[in-house]
């Protein structure tokens, strides 16, 4: 009876010495789209998730005073008490973007997360600006300093969430 090592060596020799087989071209195309998803499609998915999650997150943490669910308690009030107005804007930005990327981590594939990671700064920048535009459209009173702090928070939250969740997912892949 052959040991595992002997069997491995025998098969490996056969593997490297073989002429191989012709691989149909469509296999490579399908594999490539699986391993390197189109960044625009991934961005579209993130935008969809962000629209829903971002809106729902307003129930927990009001942004720029927007409170569509009319909740009594908000993380925003707590942030204000703990660190004042500037800290509150920064923390709200972190919270708003972190929730989106954490939910995306559950809903998207590992390769899609890699794509997000590759274009993370760009995607977060666009999502942040679109969100600010949406807040303004729904009546928020935007002040440049606060909006700047909020965007900074959004970048910090996005970077931490993308890196953290990607590393965790890779451990289990």
């Amino acid at each position, binding site marked *: 009876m052959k040991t595992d090592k002997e069997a491995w060596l025998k*098969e490996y020799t056969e*593997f490297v010495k073989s002429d191989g*087989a012709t691989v149909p071209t469509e*296999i490579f195309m399908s594999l490539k789209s*699986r*391993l390197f998803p189109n960044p625009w499609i991934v961005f579209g998915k993130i935008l969809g998730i962000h629209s829903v999650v971002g809106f729902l997150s307003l129930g927990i943490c009001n942004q720029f005073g927007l409170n569509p669910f009319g909740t009594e308690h908000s993380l925003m009030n707590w942030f204000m008490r703990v660190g004042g107005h500037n800290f509150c804007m920064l923390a709200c930005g972190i919270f708003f973007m972190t929730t989106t990327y954490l939910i995306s981590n559950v809903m998207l594939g*590992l390769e899609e997360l890699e794509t997000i990671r590759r274009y993370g700064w760009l995607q977060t920048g666009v999502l942040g600006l679109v969100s600010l535009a949406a807040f303004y459209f729904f009546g928020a009173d935007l002040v440049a300093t606060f909006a700047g702090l909020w965007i900074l928070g959004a970048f910090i939250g996005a970077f931490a969430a993308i890196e953290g969740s990607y590393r965790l997912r890779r451990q289990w892949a």
Partner: protein
Amino acid sequence: MAKNDLKEKSDEDLMEMYKLGDVIAFEVLFERHSGLVFGYLKKRLSKAKNAQDLLQEVFLKLHRSRHQYDRTLPFSPWLFSITRSVWLDCVKKKNVEHATEPEVIEDMTNHKQMMEAVTSGLDIEVLNQLPATQKEAISLRVIDEATFDEIAFKLSTSPENARKLVSRGLKKLRDILGFREE
């Protein structure tokens, strides 16, 4: 870097570039090795479609493990280890699914009855009348309850040939023992 320039590079260099996110390096590696991987899998699986699916699984696994690749070690054995583990996982999975099909269980029981007749009658010599490969194929099929893919893997042959070995061996045993097919 252009694809043609990368074609001059070693597998290990390409892997290093691929780890850093170079998609073209992956394309060159795929062009270089996918034929070998596909040939290995095709030889062991009866359906070409399954071999194509597993080929994708191999390169998906390679993609997900690329950060674990150690540049000081040759690429080819590493790729082969991935290919072999994907193949073995497939065999194990098939084995579990296959063993629960009622007709397979019935078929195995019939074969077992015949094997019991051989072994309980202390007539081991009967088995020895079969050629060595047929004897081993039957033992794997009936005693170890291996699938044809698994037998093919252990005997380094194709699943079709493994099926033929078992079928011919059982026919010969039936003739020797005077069993009749129902």
